[in-house]
């Protein structure tokens, strides 16, 4: 790791840790909580979607399930609101894991397009369960969670901020670890060619399911903190297709299958989205804005920011090393120019950095 990278990381960590100290007003911290939430969600989604290439549009199922299982535990176990409920977040994660094993076992019998559809279907299935199991979830009338009355004013958002920060960091660390491990290598092999991966001995079924469950657990825990934060759960607002698609868009914007891509995508997009929803929320025009960003990203920058910038830097460095004469033409330029081109695989939308 270069010194520049270390300094950058330390700076990011300092800003993240001290933000609520310098900007404690609820409007700012609310934005920060939701942005960190999407940093975590996009990173967690990327573990499945980016590394294995299995696009899930239904991760909101785990988000909502985490929120509801957390809420029901807090209510039925009579946990005193305050810091104690945060201890139940990992439990909500475990419950989400059991759900993810079931859904994954069924959904991963399919590939590509069918997998996408099946994940969407499962999300709507859970939304419907949330609405219909009125005796458990309260149905469409919603589920009210207890909250800490003693956290008033500017302080209210701050515990949630650090909880979201912790989960976002956890997601990034898990993603980083997977990216470097043999397991991660197996996932990338599945993305590139699943049949060949199986042929060379990657246990594809087990690997896919493991990645799916890890990704779902992180999303479920984030959902739990979100549920505690908003204190009121409605099926259509936690099993929300927009949440499911947002994390995908952020991962795509930053760079699918990269470590920093989903983080950058979330930090860029979520504040913009919140600002837009705040200004044009009533007219639903923000959906048009959202669609426009989405289309521009996919049509003009299908590989995402991180891989594109990395390529640009690489070619700049190349040019500097070779010197300006390299652009002057001649046979040498032809070979060098083709050397600047990223390999064919890297030009595909799903390329690694």
């Amino acid at each position, binding site marked *: 790791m270069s010194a520049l990278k270390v300094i950058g990381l330390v700076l990011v960590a300092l800003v993240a840790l001290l933000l609520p100290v310098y900007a404690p007003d609820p409007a700012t911290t609310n934005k920060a909580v939701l942005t960190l939430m999407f940093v975590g969600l996009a990173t967690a989604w990327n573990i499945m979607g980016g590394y294995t290439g299995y696009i899930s549009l239904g991760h909101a199922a785990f988000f909502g399930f985490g929120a509801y299982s957390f809420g029901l535990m807090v209510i039925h176990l009579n946990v005193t609101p305050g810091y104690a409920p945060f201890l139940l977040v990992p439990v909500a994660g475990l419950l989400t894991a059991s759900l993810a094993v079931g859904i994954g076992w069924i959904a991963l019998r399919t590939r590509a397009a069918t997998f996408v559809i099946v994940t969407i279907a499962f999300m709507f299935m859970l939304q419907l369960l949330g609405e219909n199991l009125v005796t458990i979830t309260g149905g469409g009338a919603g589920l009210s969670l207890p909250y800490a009355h003693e956290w008033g004013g500017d302080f209210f958002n701050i515990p949630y901020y650090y909880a979201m920060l912790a989960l976002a960091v956890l997601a990034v660390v898990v993603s980083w670890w997977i990216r470097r491990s043999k397991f991660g290598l197996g996932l990338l092999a599945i993305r590139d060619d699943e049949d060949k991966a199986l042929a060379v001995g990657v246990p594809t079924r087990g690997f896919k399911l493991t990645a799916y469950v890890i990704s779902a657990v992180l999303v479920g825990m984030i959902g739990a903190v979100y549920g505690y934060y908003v204190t009121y759960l409605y099926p259509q607002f936690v099993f929300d297709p927009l949440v499911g698609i947002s994390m995908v868009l952020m991962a795509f914007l930053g760079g699918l299958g990269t470590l920093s891509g989903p983080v950058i995508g979330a930090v860029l997009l979520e504040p913009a989205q919140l600002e837009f929803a705040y200004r044009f929320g009533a007219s639903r025009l923000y959906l048009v804005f959202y669609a426009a960003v989405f289309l521009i990203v*996919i049509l003009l920058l299908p590989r995402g920011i991180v891989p594109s910038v990395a390529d640009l830097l690489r070619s700049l460095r190349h040019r500097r090393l070779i010197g300006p004469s390299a652009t002057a033409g001649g046979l040498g330029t032809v070979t060098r120019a083709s050397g600047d081109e990223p390999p064919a695989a890297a030009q595909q939308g799903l390329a690694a950095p």
Partner: protein
Amino acid sequence: MTLILEAVVLGVLTGGVYALMASGLTLIFGVMRIINVGHGALVVLGAYLSFALLRSFHMDPFLSLLLTMPAMFLLGVVLQFVFIRPLKTDREALSVLVTYALALGIEGALGYVFTANFVELRAWYETASFGIFGFHITWVYVFGFVLCLAILGALFLVLYRTAFGGAIRATMLNRTAAQLIGIDVDRVAAVAFGMGVATAAAGGVVFGITNAFNPGSHYDLISRLLTIIVLGGLGSLRGAVIAALIMLVTEDITQVLISPVWANFVFFVILVAILIVRPQGLYGLRVRERI
């Protein structure tokens, strides 16, 4: 017993409408290998176009199809040209996202123009009914069913009795081979997308008369339509029609026997069951197609 029989009749009649909408979706998948997640939004858009014509010119919803279907066909061709064709790599995954974005854009634009309030297409046949063998059937279901049969019939005629239909089917079977024997697959794709979107307009009218709808209605619709085409086997028209009938009849029977709130749930139960037993759907091809 009569209730169940009535549910079956109603299921078949509404199943026809879903068969039409789902066949547009599966046709698009078959030709281009893309899943048009925006299909539900296009259905809702079709319903709103007819709604606008009804409100401004008092045009009968079924009659307004003469205007909206060609318009939606053109829209489909344009959407295909602008948003789908540029996707060169990893088309399957990216197209899902692009069409999802289109759905959001359509939802947002409709919400801006028509607000989020629920509306309904009103016509005399919406409530008028007739009695037959002791059942009461509302006229709109019959009209809708006949319309859908006619359009589906026309679709099958084009696909199986014309040279262009042959080109479409060839492209569905093997895109590269179709290109090699001189089929202009880009044109085939554009027309097939247009046809799929035009069927969405027709489905939208019947949907709009039988249901109150708002710009957000497309989520519910698309999850049903996607389930239908997975059940039928992606890319199979026959499968889509049969799956739509199975789904809607089962749904209406559940509505009678158990409760309306669980009727929707049947869709997902059938989906899970079919995935466990036969992941490729009723008429789908095995993994060779990578679906």
